């Protein structure tokens, strides 16, 4: 009788034991398999291409004359954390781009003065991109920076408010005038209203329309110069080496010296092999920033309650009509070279396409996709594994037929892309900035 009662317990214990043993054997088998599978020359070339040491120096930005001016970065740093750049005095750039969250905010969609419809993208390494926002409706870091300032759901500010802040704060005024020259006299209320801007708000827009064209240009110049200073700061935000970069350095040296490297677990190595191989992740997440900064329809579902985003296809006309694009009068590039804009792709292929985000520090920047639709990296891997038909446009991704252990390996590998921001911590908090990178 006693034995009969014990049977279920014994069966459960046996099951748990064999299950655990199976998991252990699976993990050990994976380790052995990975240990005995050397990287091919092609795989090593791909690993080298992803290695942070392969990142080319940041090119100058001809559209921003102060892009690499230390004082512009100092001004931009102060502005980035200043909540006075908003209609309610509570929203700074750093609300949605929080340094401790790798310059994202941890929310599905960001909240400024109101709730927006897009997930906050990281700013780290963003200076390398020819396009900004998920749909690429901006073509420079400085032009991007102006967008949220006067967006009614983000900062909710306006051009006159921003200009008056710069003119009225002695610290801002000194730095600004040293960079851009003397500010206009804004005390004449007949010429310069307290609040105005070319915005849907009828009061603000009416006030803006009543100004003379030269005065509107003068205010827009201050406004874009604020964007250029913010861009100068954001050009400093670069990723530091991750555990993947350490592994890449080791394995690339080891390939030459024919010694084994074991700083990655078998699971992580398997994930890397999938990432650059059968998983096809590296097709779009390529280069040292793990992004080609281009636009792809990968079948992302729309956010609950929202129509599917048209993505890039809806942004082309916004970009071309934007007076702050690189072809416009506020660009400092007198040659208006603007190759990316002049030879910009249009057409149906861009319907539902969004910009590839960087995967550096991806495990710290959940939730994912343009509207934060996916809560975890496991969800993201599942989406790409299934590659269902896109709600609009054509899904470029193909089903991957990944096993559960494959998916686990991919997520493990993505965790190795965590790393610091390669910048003195003083630059990552509000307050006066003392040192620039590379100076003592």
């Amino acid at each position: 009788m006693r034995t009969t009662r014990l049977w279920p317990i014994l069966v459960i214990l046996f099951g748990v034991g064999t299950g655990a043993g199976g998991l252990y054997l699976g993990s050990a088998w994976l380790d052995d398999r990975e240990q005995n599978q050397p990287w091919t020359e092609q795989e090593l070339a791909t690993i080298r291409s992803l290695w942070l040491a392969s990142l080319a120096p940041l090119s100058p930005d001809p559209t921003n004359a102060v892009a690499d001016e230390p004082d512009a970065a100092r001004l931009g740093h102060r502005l980035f954390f200043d909540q006075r750049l908003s209609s309610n005095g509570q929203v700074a750039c750093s609300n949605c781009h929080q340094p401790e969250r790798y310059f994202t905010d941890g929310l599905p969609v960001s909240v400024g003065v109101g709730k927006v419809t897009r997930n906050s993208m990281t700013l780290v390494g963003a200076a390398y991109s020819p396009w900004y926002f998920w749909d690429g409706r901006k073509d420079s870091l400085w032009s991007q920076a102006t967008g949220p300032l006067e967006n009614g759901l983000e900062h909710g500010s306006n051009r006159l408010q921003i200009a008056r802040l710069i003119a009225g704060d002695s610290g801002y005024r000194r730095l600004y005038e040293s960079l851009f020259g003397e500010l206009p006299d804004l005390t004449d209320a007949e010429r310069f209203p307290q609040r105005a801007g070319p915005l849907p708000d009828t009061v603000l827009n009416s006030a803006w329309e009543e100004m003379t064209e030269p005065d509107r240009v003068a205010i827009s110049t201050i406004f874009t110069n604020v964007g250029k200073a913010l861009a100068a700061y954001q050009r400093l935000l670069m990723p530091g080496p991750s555990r993947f970069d350490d592994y890449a350095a080791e394995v690339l040296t080891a390939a030459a010296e024919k010694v084994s490297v074991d700083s990655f677990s078998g699971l992580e190595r398997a994930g890397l092999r999938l990432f650059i191989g059968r998983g096809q992740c590296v097709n779009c997440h390529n280069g040292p920033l793990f992004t080609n900064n281009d636009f792809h329809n990968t079948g992302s579902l729309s956010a609950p309650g929202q129509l599917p985003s048209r993505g890039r296809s809806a942004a082309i006309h916004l970009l071309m009509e934007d007076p702050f694009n690189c072809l416009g009068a506020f660009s400092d590039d007198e040659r208006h070279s603007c190759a990316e804009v002049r030879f910009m792709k249009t057409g149906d292929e861009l319907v539902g396409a969004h910009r590839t985000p960087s995967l550096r520090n991806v495990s710290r920047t959940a939730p994912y996709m343009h509207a934060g639709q996916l809560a975890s990296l496991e969800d993201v891997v599942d989406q790409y594994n299934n590659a269902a038909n896109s709600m609009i446009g054509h899904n470029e991704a193909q089903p991957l037929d990944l096993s559960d252990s494959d998916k686990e390996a991919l997520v493990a590998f993505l965790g190795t892309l965590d790393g610091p921001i390669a910048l003195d911590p003083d630059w990552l908090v509000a307050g006066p900035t003392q040192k620039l990178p590379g100076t003592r």
Partner: protein
Amino acid sequence: MRSMSRLAILCFAVAVLVAPVTAQQRAGEQGVLSNSGRLLLSYSSELVPVQINTIHNWVLHVELSTGEVVENAQISLAGGMTEHDHGLPTAPRMTRYLGDGDYLMEGVRFHMNGRWVVTVQVDYGELSDSVVFELEI
């Protein structure tokens, strides 16, 4: 001495195998006949070797298969990756005739590694013809 020769041959073989300029690119640079066989097109890239994620220019050289250069033709360019069912990430176009059968194509960019197909359409008088370049990037 013999082992040195073997080593040199081995080094050369390795160099050829890992050379960044692929065989397809070399063919494109040396010239490819058009579909009708009446034109010979070649290209040279401002970016050598061709790499992903950098916008750059090409110069296309167009001549008849008999050797005469083709002046002031209309040239257009399209391309993509058949494996991934997408086109080029930019819209390159001919912006200038440089003379001597050379045409400046601006705005070329590739955004993925792998096999690309670039089709160049040439309209010249009564002749309408195309050439397909294959690149492994």
